[in-house]
């Protein structure tokens, strides 16, 4: 029997959630016994395998066009998709810019800000365009489960993953349920 596959992915975030996943310490060894890691910044595999994966963990918010493409491709290839961390769930720290119009953000960063040498808003086609606001992932794709926290505690990852792998409905104990 083949092992269940897991993929992870990051959008606009700080990788803190991935760090927290690694914080399950020696249980990472148990996890590797249980599952096969597919696409992940940890494996440096850039796309999920064609046949898809069983569980996908996505960190980070949606802040530009590339995030949208990445999220949609990831959703397509994951049977269960888990939104991980405050950024994915509510926009989190990147959403701080939602108070400020995107024109002003670009103006401050590229035109009027201090120490700018050649003021110009970048227009290289390779660069993903920013969206007007930062959005949580559930605005664009269907999300099956959410793992809150900034980052979610390592034990919360363990609790969620073991539940999903054993076919149980995940449920977090109070100390593992946190938004900060």
């Amino acid at each position: 029997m083949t092992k269940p596959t897991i993929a992870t992915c990051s959008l606009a975030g700080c990788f803190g959630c991935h760090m927290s996943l690694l914080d399950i310490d020696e249980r990472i060894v148990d996890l590797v016994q249980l599952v096969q890691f597919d696409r992940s910044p940890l494996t440096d595999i850039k796309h999920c395998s064609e046949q898809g994966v069983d569980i996908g963990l996505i960190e980070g918010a949606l802040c530009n066009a590339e995030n949208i493409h990445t999220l949609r491709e990831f959703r397509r290839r994951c049977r269960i998709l888990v939104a991980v961390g405050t950024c994915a769930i509510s926009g989190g720290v990147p959403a701080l810019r939602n108070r400020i119009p995107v024109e002003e953000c670009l103006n401050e960063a590229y035109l009027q800000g201090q120490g700018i040498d050649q003021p110009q808003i970048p227009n290289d086609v390779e660069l993903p365009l920013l969206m007007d606001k930062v959005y949580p992932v559930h605005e664009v794709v269907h999300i099956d489960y959410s793992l809150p926290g900034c980052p979610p505690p390592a034990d919360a990852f363990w609790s969620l993953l073991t539940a999903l792998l054993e076919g149980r409905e995940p449920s977090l104990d109070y100390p593992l349920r946190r938004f900060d």
Partner: protein
Amino acid sequence: MHAMNYQRINQILDDHGRNPLRLVQILIGIQAECGGIPASVRDYISKALAVPLAQVHGVVAFYHFLSPEIQGQYRIYVADNIIDRMHGNQEVMATLLQELQAERGKPRADGQVFIDYTSCTGLCDQGPALLINSRALTHVTPDRAKEIAERINAGEPLNNWPSHWFQVEESPRVAGPVLASQFEPGRGLQAALEMGPAQYLKEVERAGLRGRGGAGFRTAIKWRVSRDAPGKTHYVICNADEGEPGTFKDRALLTRDADAMFEGMTLAGLVIGAEKGFLYLRGEYTYLYSQLVATLARRRAEHLLGKNILGREFNFDVEIHLGAGAYVAGEESALIESLEGKCAVPRPRPPFTATHGYLGQPTVCNNVETFVKTALIAQNGADWFLECGTRYSPGSKLLSVSGDVARPGIYEYPFGTSVQTVLEACGARETQAVQIGGPSGTCITPNEFDRAICYEDLSTGGSFMVFNRSRDMLSVVQNFIHFFADESCGFCTPCRVGTQLMRRAIDKIVAGKAGARELKEIEHAAKCTRAMSHCGLGQTATKPFLDTLDRLRPQYEARLSNLDFVPNFDLDQSLSKTRALSQRDDPHAHLPQTGEACDARI
């Protein structure tokens, strides 16, 4: 800039005795006089009345017909109930906007014209209808809209417009015992004074009269509880805030039976020991105000109102308060808040109005139709009243019939009459559904047309909207959901937020962009809003959705998207600003909203 006429504002303040309890009335006066209530005036009023500025701001922001900015000389509200839509109100709006060169919901650049939609104005039998400076115009066609715009553009005062434009017809289609009754002002009062208030109350009780606003509470019990409640002063309120979309029977009664209504209020005063009554007239019916004032004056002259009524030691008088566009004010405790000069936010209950109403005193609050009936019971006796109806719903009910019918208008039928009977009488054909009791009532489909109109089956305040098979019922539901989202007072979480979530969901469903999962989820949220809301508005706001989901589920399912999920916002639009700023238009500068590449799951 408009120079504010503070002399007139002072006059309005003086007319209302600079009484903070009359804040809403004062602001209505200023709105009519100045076309808006800007910050400087709000400050002035706050200081003149010693009312917190936040309360003045709050009231101005709360009521639809009050505005924090100057809207101009012509303020136009086009009725936007689903029936007005079926009559073509959107064409009327488009014509007006075009001919007036105005933008909806914003004062025109010259500050002379404001135009917007408003909810049902109580003229669904004569729509499309609109209000200009609180005066009603009926049967407005796009051609008429052009003529209206011409006169506005020429700056012609409303008084010079053809009077038939403002004609509101009141001719009942089917008259029952109430509409056929010959009411003689004072006769019922005389009879009640002779038999004594206690005996008269027994007559009302024997008649088994129940509240005609729709809730069906027994009138005699309400009156007795209020009479027996301790308090310095007792009050009587007539709820003429007929805001349920599709109903207009109170409009008819206020027009032709105001005498009986005021007599009913006076009788209530006699029973509970009140000397003061209020008629709370919805802002949409402001055009009835002057004739109601005249009726009051005549009744005073005839010693049917005022001091020593009919020569007895009994004083009672009525003051008319106007609403300013707030459906929730139809809820009696919200209505009382408005009477006290505040935002119409329903109070926590208990305590109830009967014991703690206006200014915390025992108060009877009844519907227009109820008061008309208490007057007729005094005149004609309980036996007359009991001649028709059912055991639990004695008497008759006035229905406001509109929609896909040959003969819209007022129909009076005994309680217990079937929906089918009404449909036949009004000439409805190929009927798909009937909305009984307005958006907050019940939506029924043909296999239920044998159901009876009465408290024990289909309870109604009177609204009876008919939809034939050509109508898209989901658009009907969408109109109702938008109505509730606009009318939620914002006090409690489930209604304030829940109605907005419903609005977003129904828009997505109607646009064919919601999936089965989303339909299920919104049903869940709708049930939460229904269970947890503070007042009847939130408790019934999701009913149009839940009723039709129950009865017309295939229509919803036919609209569902097969895609896994369609984003909640326009992805490509979300890039438009940065696309323009970076002067890009390459393929990578765009995002598709749907499509196989985005949505198919492995």
